[in-house]
C-alpha cells in the first residue's frame, strides 16, 4: 500500500484497490462499506459497486480477502455478535441482570445463569445476540451457552481494579494487540504501550487487563501490594494518553517512562 486512500460517504471504492485473491473465498466487506447494485444500465460492466458509507481510511487484507473502512475512533459502539464487552449491572429482574453497555442505549440482558451480581458490578461478557425486530435487546453472557461453563478468557465478574473509558477505535486496537503475537519494536497496529508497561511493571507483580469493545478497559494490579492504586492509575493514564493523542510507538514509550516516573514506580 502506498498512500492511504481516504474515502468520504458516497465515494466508490476503486476496483484496483480491492485485494485480488486467487482463492475462491468471497470478498468480505467490513463496516463502513456497502455493496450496491447498480441499476443495470450497462449490462456488460460489473453491476456491483462498493460504496463507502462512512468517512475513513480504506484498508484491505489480501490474506483474509477482506476490505473495510477505518473510521473515526470515537464513534459509538454498536453491539455485534461475539464481541467482548465490559458491562455494568444496572438492576436485576427475575430472569436477567440488566446491564449498561453504552450510554443512552437499551440495557443488555445477562442471563441469570451467571454468578450472583449486585448493582454496579462490572462483568466481562460476550455478546450472544443483538436481536432483531421490535423491542429487541442485546443479550450478553459470560458462560458458554452450550456447556454452561465459564468461558475461557476471563469471562465473568471483574472484581477490584478500575475501569477506564477509551475510544472504541482504541479498544479494537488493544484487542487485536492482545490476540496476536506482537513483534517487539512495532507492535500490532503500532501499539507498544502494553508490552512496554508489562516490561516495566513486571517487577511489582504485573497487571491484569480486560478490554471491552464498547470502549472500556479494566485494569487490576492486585499483585502490586502497596503500589496497587498508583500502578492502576498509571496504566489507565498511559492507555488514555495514547488514545487521545494518537501517539506513535516512540512517543508511547516516552509516555510510559514519564508516567511511571511521575508516579514513583
Amino acid at each position, binding site marked *: *500500500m502506498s498512500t*492511504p486512500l*481516504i474515502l*468520504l*460517504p*458516497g*465515494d466508490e471504492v476503486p476496483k484496483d484497490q480491492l485485494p485480488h485473491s486467487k482463492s475462491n473465498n468471497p470478498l468480505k466487506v467490513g463496516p*463502513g462499506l*456497502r455493496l450496491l447494485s447498480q441499476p443495470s444500465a450497462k449490462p456488460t460492466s460489473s453491476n456491483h459497486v462498493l*460504496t463507502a*458509507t*462512512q*468517512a*475513513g*481510511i480504506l484498508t484491505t487484507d489480501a490474506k483474509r480477502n477482506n476490505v473495510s473502512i*477505518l*473510521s*473515526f*475512533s*470515537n*464513534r*459509538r459502539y*454498536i453491539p455485534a455478535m461475539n464481541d467482548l464487552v465490559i458491562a455494568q449491572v444496572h438492576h436485576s429482574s427475575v430472569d436477567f441482570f440488566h446491564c449498561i453497555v453504552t450510554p*443512552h*442505549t*437499551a440495557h443488555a440482558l445477562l442471563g441469570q445463569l451467571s454468578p450472583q451480581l449486585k448493582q454496579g458490578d462490572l462483568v466481562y461478557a460476550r455478546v450472544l445476540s443483538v436481536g432483531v425486530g*421490535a423491542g*429487541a435487546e442485546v443479550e450478553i453472557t459470560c458462560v458458554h451457552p452450550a456447556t454452561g461453563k465459564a468461558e475461557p478468557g476471563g469471562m465473568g465478574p471483574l472484581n477490584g481494579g478500575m475501569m477506564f473509558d477509551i475510544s472504541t*477505535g482504541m479498544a479494537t486496537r488493544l484487542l487485536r494487540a492482545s490476540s496476536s503475537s506482537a513483534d517487539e519494536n*512495532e507492535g500490532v*497496529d*503500532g*501499539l507498544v504501550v502494553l508490552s512496554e508497561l508489562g516490561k516495566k511493571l513486571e517487577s511489582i507483580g504485573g497487571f491484569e487487563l480486560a478490554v471491552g469493545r464498547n470502549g472500556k478497559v479494566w485494569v487490576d494490579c492486585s499483585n502490586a501490594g502497596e503500589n496497587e492504586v498508583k500502578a492502576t492509575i498509571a496504566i489507565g493514564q498511559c492507555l488514555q494518553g495514547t488514545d487521545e493523542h*494518537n*501517539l*506513535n*510507538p516512540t512517543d508511547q514509550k516516552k509516555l510510559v517512562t514519564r508516567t511511571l516516573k511521575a508516579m514513583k514506580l
Partner: protein
Amino acid sequence: MVGPTASLSNLHRADGSASYKCPATGFAVLGAVNGPVELPARRDALKPEEATVEVFVKPGNAVPGVGEKYVEGILRDVLSTVILRREKGLPRRGVVITLAIVGGEATERGDSYLTLLPALLHAAQLALISAAIPLPMTLATTLLGVTRSGEIIRDPSPAVAKAATSLHAISFSSKGHLLMNESLGRFDFDTWELVRQQAATICRGAATPGSDGDAAMGGTDNAHVDGFVRETVEDHLHRDYNWKLESI
C-alpha cells in the same frame, strides 16, 4: 475572501462533534451527534423500519423559541435524506443532532434563519461524519444574496443580506442533486436559475462533470465547498491514524 474553518471531534462525551465557522457571514456553530441511541417510545416516531432523526438548535444568547422549532424542521428534513436510516443498528433508534450557535449576529423574531442554514448544515454534516453515522453522500451548502443591482454575492454579511432583494440558501449533494433550496425575497425564475448555477459551482467546483473528488487539494481561494468538507475530514483522519500512517 477568507474561507470557512472547521474542526472535528472537539467534544469528548458526544459520539461525534464538529465546529464550523464562516468568517464572511460571521456565524459559528458547534454541533454534536449522538447515535444510534434508544429513544423513549413516542407517537411521532412512527416508522419502525428506520431511524428517527432529531435536531435541536440552541441559539447563543436566548432560550430556543418558535423560530428554532421552524429551522429544526428544515434541518431534520434535509439531514434525514442524507442519513442511511435503515442501515444495521439504526432502525427504531434515534440520531440526535444538537447544534449550538456560538457566534454571529443574533437572530431576530420572525427571522428566516436563511443566513444561518449553511453553517448549521455544515456543522451537522461534519458531526455526523465524525460520529460515523452511515451516509449515502455528503452535502454542500451555500448562501447567495442578490442585490438591488442584480449582482449575486456569495456569503453576504448580515448587513448585505438585509439589504438584498432576495436571499437563497442552496444545498447540493456530492452526487449533484439539488437537496435543499430556501429562497426568500423578490425574484423571478431566471434570476434563480443564475443563482442556482453559481451555487452549483461554489458547492461542487467548476461545472465539468465527473471531475470532482480530489481536485481541490490545494485549498486555494476558489476551492469549492465539497473540497473543503473533504479536506477537513482528511486532515482529521490523518491525525487520528497518525500511528498507522507513520508505520506504513
